[in-house]
C-alpha cells in the first residue's frame, strides 16, 4: 500500500459528486450576471473558475489558497481586462455546471475542447496542453495502445482521456470509469486495474509523491490542448479572449507559465 489516505480519497470523490449536483441544483440562483468585457470593467471584477485537485494545473498552496497553472493564467486574463480576479476552485465534474449556473463568468480550468462539450459551452482557442499518457504497473509490458487489448484501463469519467481512449482503443480494451485522476492512480497502485490514462503532468506528479510505487509512465498517446470556456450568450467575451490568448502567446507570457509549472515550453497549440 502507498500512503494515500482512503478517507481523504473518499471525501474527494463525494465532494466531486456533491459539488456537481449542488452546482446543478443552484442553477436558478444566479450570481455572475455580467457577460461582456465592458460590464466586467464596470463591475471591477470577474469570477473565474479554475480546476481543483489536478496538479500542477489546480492545486492548493501552503496557505490553503487555490494555486497552479490555471490560477496564473486566470490572473493574467484579469490583468489584461483591468479587473480583479475572483478565483473559484472547482472539482472536474463541477466545472461546466458551475459555468452554466452562472456561479462563475469564465472557466480557465484545463478543459479539453471536445465537440460534445462545445454543444453546450463555447471554447476560445487553447491556452495550454498536456500529453495524454498511460501509467501502468511495472510488470505491464505496454508500448502502444495495441498492447492494452484485454487489459483494464482506468479513466476519469467524461474526461478527454475517456473520450479519446474510447475512440482510439483496440477492441478488447476494458475501459473502467472513476470520478477523478487520484482514484484512477489508486486503482493502478492497488492492482484493481492494469493501467490508467492520465495527463503526463499528473503521472509525473503522482509518481514523484509515491516513490517506490509499483507504477511507471508507459507512453503518450495523444496531445490534449486545453481551452478556457464561456457560455453561449458571451460571444463578445469569447472574441476578447481569443484576441488576448493570441497576444499572450506572442508576448511569451503563456510560455513562461508553462515553463514555471511543467518545466517545458508551450507546445504548438491549435488555433480556431
Amino acid at each position, binding site marked *: 500500500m502507498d500512503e494515500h489516505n482512503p478517507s481523504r480519497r*473518499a471525501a474527494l470523490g463525494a465532494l466531486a459528486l456533491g459539488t456537481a449536483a449542488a452546482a446543478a441544483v443552484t442553477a436558478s440562483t444566479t450570481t455572475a450576471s455580467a457577460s461582456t468585457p465592458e460590464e466586467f470593467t464596470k463591475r471591477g471584477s470577474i469570477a473565474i473558475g479554475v480546476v481543483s485537485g489536478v496538479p500542477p494545473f489546480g492545486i492548493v498552496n501552503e496557505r490553503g489558497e487555490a494555486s497552479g497553472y490555471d490560477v496564473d493564467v486566470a490572473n493574467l486574463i484579469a490583468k489584461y481586462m483591468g479587473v480583479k480576479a475572483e478565483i473559484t476552485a472547482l472539482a472536474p465534474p463541477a466545472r461546466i455546471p458551475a459555468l452554466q449556473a452562472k456561479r462563475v463568468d469564465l472557466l480557465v480550468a484545463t478543459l479539453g475542447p471536445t465537440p460534445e462539450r462545445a454543444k453546450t459551452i463555447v471554447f476560445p482557442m487553447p491556452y495550454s496542453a498536456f500529453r495524454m499518457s498511460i501509467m501502468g504497473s511495472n510488470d505491464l509490458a505496454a508500448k502502444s495502445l495495441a498492447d492494452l487489448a484485454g487489459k483494464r484501463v482506468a479513466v476519469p469519467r467524461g474526461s478527454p482521456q475517456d473520450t479519446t481512449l474510447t475512440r482510439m482503443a483496440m477492441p478488447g480494451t476494458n475501459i473502467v470509469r472513476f470520478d477523478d485522476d487520484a482514484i484512477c492512480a489508486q486503482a493502478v497502485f492497488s492492482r*484493481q486495474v492494469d493501467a490508467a490514462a492520465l495527463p503526463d503532468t499528473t503521472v509525473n506528479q503522482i509518481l514523484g509523491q509515491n516513490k517506490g510505487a509499483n507504477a511507471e509512465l508507459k507512453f503518450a498517446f495523444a496531445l490534449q490542448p486545453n481551452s478556457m470556456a464561456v457560455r453561449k450568450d458571451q460571444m463578445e467575451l469569447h472574441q476578447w479572449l481569443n484576441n488576448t490568448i493570441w497576444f499572450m502567446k506572442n508576448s511569451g507570457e503563456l510560455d513562461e507559465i508553462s515553463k514555471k509549472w511543467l518545466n517545458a515550453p508551450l507546445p504548438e497549440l491549435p488555433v480556431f
Partner: protein
Amino acid sequence: MPSLVFSDVWAQFDTLLSGLLQTVWISAVAIVLGVVIGVLCAVARSARSRILRALAAGYVEGMRNTPFIVQLFLVFFGLPGLGIQITAIQAGLIALTLNLGAYSAEIIRAGIEATHRSQIEAGAALGLRRRDILLHVVLLPALERVWPALSSQFVLTMLASSILSQISVEELSSAGALIDSRTYRSMEVYIILAGFYLGLTMLFRLSFDLAGRFLFPRRRAVAVRR
C-alpha cells in the same frame, strides 16, 4: 432557470436501463445476504458466549459508526493490498452486505428483545427444544414485528448502492454521471435519476410488503409489549 432539454439524455436510454438493472440485482443480492448476516449477528449478540457477543458488538458498532464510502474504499483498495483480488462489483457487494448486516442486526435485536419472557417459558413448558424456541418463539415473531423497519433499511441499502459509482461499478448513478459527462445536461440527468430511484423505491417497498405477507402468513395480531 435554464431551459430543460431531455432528448439528449433519453437518447442514451440503453445506458440508463443497464444501470438500472445493475442497481436492482446488486441491491437484491446485498439485501438477501445482509439480512442473513443481520439475523446471525442479532442472535450472536444475545448468545451465552461472551466472545461471540463481543465479536458481534464490535462488528455492528464498527460498521454503524463509519461512513459507507470509507468502508467501500477500504474493501476496494484494501483487499487487493492483502493479496485478495476482487472486482469492483464484488467489492461493492461485500461493503453493501456488511453495512446492511450491521444495521439490520440492530433492528432485529430490538425485535428479539421485545419477546416477553413468558413466551419463552411457555415454549419451554410445552417441551420445545431450545433451538425450536429460538426459531419459532423468538426469531420469526421478532422478524415479523420489525419487518416494516427492516424494509426501510433495505430501501436505504438500495439508495446507498449509488455510492458504488465511485469504484467504477456501472450502476444507475454511474450511468447517469456518464450521460451527464457526455451531454452536460446535469439538471435533466439528475431529475431523471431521481425519478428512477423514486420508482425503484416504490417497487422495492411493494415487493417487501408482498414478501412479508408470504414470509409471515399467519397475519396474527402482533401483541405490542410495553
